[in-house]
């Protein structure tokens, strides 16, 4: 069973979201990186870009596939993980830590409550994760 930390929220597209004060840190889950295989490229928006919940904000490319990244919440990008440009494999090695992708300043706090809880996400991937 993939690692699903209890203190995070999740999307059906396999992103995780972590509340840090008024901001939300975003990455992809351990399940997602296992499914993708070795990540070779991550394309992220610039700081200051606007992202919208359930809309794509970037691309992750592995040796097997190219997948869109979906924003868990709407808002402005306040940080993007520049280290992934040189070391995309961090997404595989440490998906909930060094493999983070964005920090977003959310524009609508209600969107947080619509995200899956850890228990809901665990059940979702137990059913196949589609």
């Amino acid at each position, binding site marked *: 069973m993939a690692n699903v930390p209890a203190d995070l929220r999740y999307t059906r597209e396999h992103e995780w979201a972590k509340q840090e004060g008024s901001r939300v840190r975003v990455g992809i889950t351990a399940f997602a990186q296992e499914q993708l295989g070795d990540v070779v490229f991550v394309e992220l928006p610039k700081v200051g870009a606007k992202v919208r919940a359930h809309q794509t904000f970037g691309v992750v490319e592995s040796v097997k*596939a190219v997948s869109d990244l979906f924003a868990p919440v709407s808002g402005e990008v306040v940080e993007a993980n520049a280290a992934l440009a040189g070391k995309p494999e961090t997404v595989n090695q440490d998906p909930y830590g060094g493999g983070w992708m964005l920090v977003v300043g959310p524009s609508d706090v209600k969107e947080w409550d619509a995200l899956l809880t850890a228990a809901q996400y665990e059940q979702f991937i137990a059913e196949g994760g589609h």
Partner: protein
Amino acid sequence: MRYLPNTAQNQRAMLETIGAGSIEDLLVRIPAKARLGRPLALPPALAESELVRHMRTLAARNADADSHVCFLGAGAYDHYVPSPINHMVLRGEFFTAYTPYQPEASQGTLRTIYEYQTMIAELTGMDVANASIYDGASSLAEAALMAHSITGRAEIALAGGVNPLYRRVVETYVDGPGLKLREVPSPEGVLDLDAARRVVGGKTAALVVQSPNFYGCLEDVAAAAELAHAAGALLVVASDPVNLGVLEAPGRQGADIVVGEGQGLGVPLGFGGPYLGVFAAKNEFVRRMPGRLVGATVDLDAARGFALTLQTREQHIRRAKATSNICTNVALCALMATIYLSTLGKQGLVSVGELSTAKAHYAAERLSAVPGVSLRFAQPFFKEFTLKLPKPPDRVAARLARQHILAGLPLRSYDRKLSDCLLVAVTERRTKDEIDAFADALTKAVV
């Protein structure tokens, strides 16, 4: 090419196999009113020797750079094609138009493309060059789309000196994604920087300049770069790579994307090509670059090898997200350029540029001394320049063509304001005698 006969016996065998009595039987379902009702009006078949004679007679009616003395340019130039090029490209191992479909099985082809990319990157002063695109015009159009993709902005500012034929191709390409083209006037033959400052702004994805431009004038690329970058836009430079043995590389003057027509690098003049689209960019934009990229790598035994390192991924997957539909390159023309540059070497390319520009300046001096003839623009030029004539240029050009001189391109159908102008190109192939004869013939033609 294989010769495939189609004898009466072959036809009978094929008809028997599919159970048809005659070829006419295959067509019965086509309504009679849609049929021609008589045989095609074709002359009788010729024997091979007769056909070759017939085709040679037709071909001899063309005016080309061997039958005439060529001062025509405007994007394709009569530079000398060294003999090793034909010798090499006709080899069976190389004689194909495309990147191979199973590329890694063709290490020799990949190696030549890798060398081509390396030389183009060095010439243009850019980090990375792709395996080539169809021609200069499609390279420029792809650069416009790429600038849009990088910046997220929807306007492309084109300097007035950009080849008008390129401009039309760009118009076609940007119509689908809905980009807006804005032209920056160049009344004095080069980009008007004040006008450019008014056009280039927060919506501009790229400022596009060509240098030397369509009229032959050299643009201030560094000033254009500064202007574009101040607005957060990219600078796209269209440049003829043959000139870059002498002229400063656009990459060292601030260009973000460099494109160009590479025909001068050993590709013979042809009516409509095939030519060579040069495309190079800064490394930070490599993921947005159209086409394909060959890279060097090592195999399991640590031996050097070559692989298709990058190709627009949407060719195979995620096609809805495509940023470009360029899925191949003009491998044979790129090979010609590779052999050309290898044959000439560093000194040879410098000589081609120095001879071309020296002869062009001699020609400009001679021709502008003809009574009534003058240089249209007071700007530095390289191997091409615009002449103002006292008589209609199309008639002058037609008259000189009868004397086996291709005088240049009458600009009337490209720019109404220059309807009294003729665009003249001079390469290293032109001799002093040919230039003097041109000046004499022009003197008589404009009296």
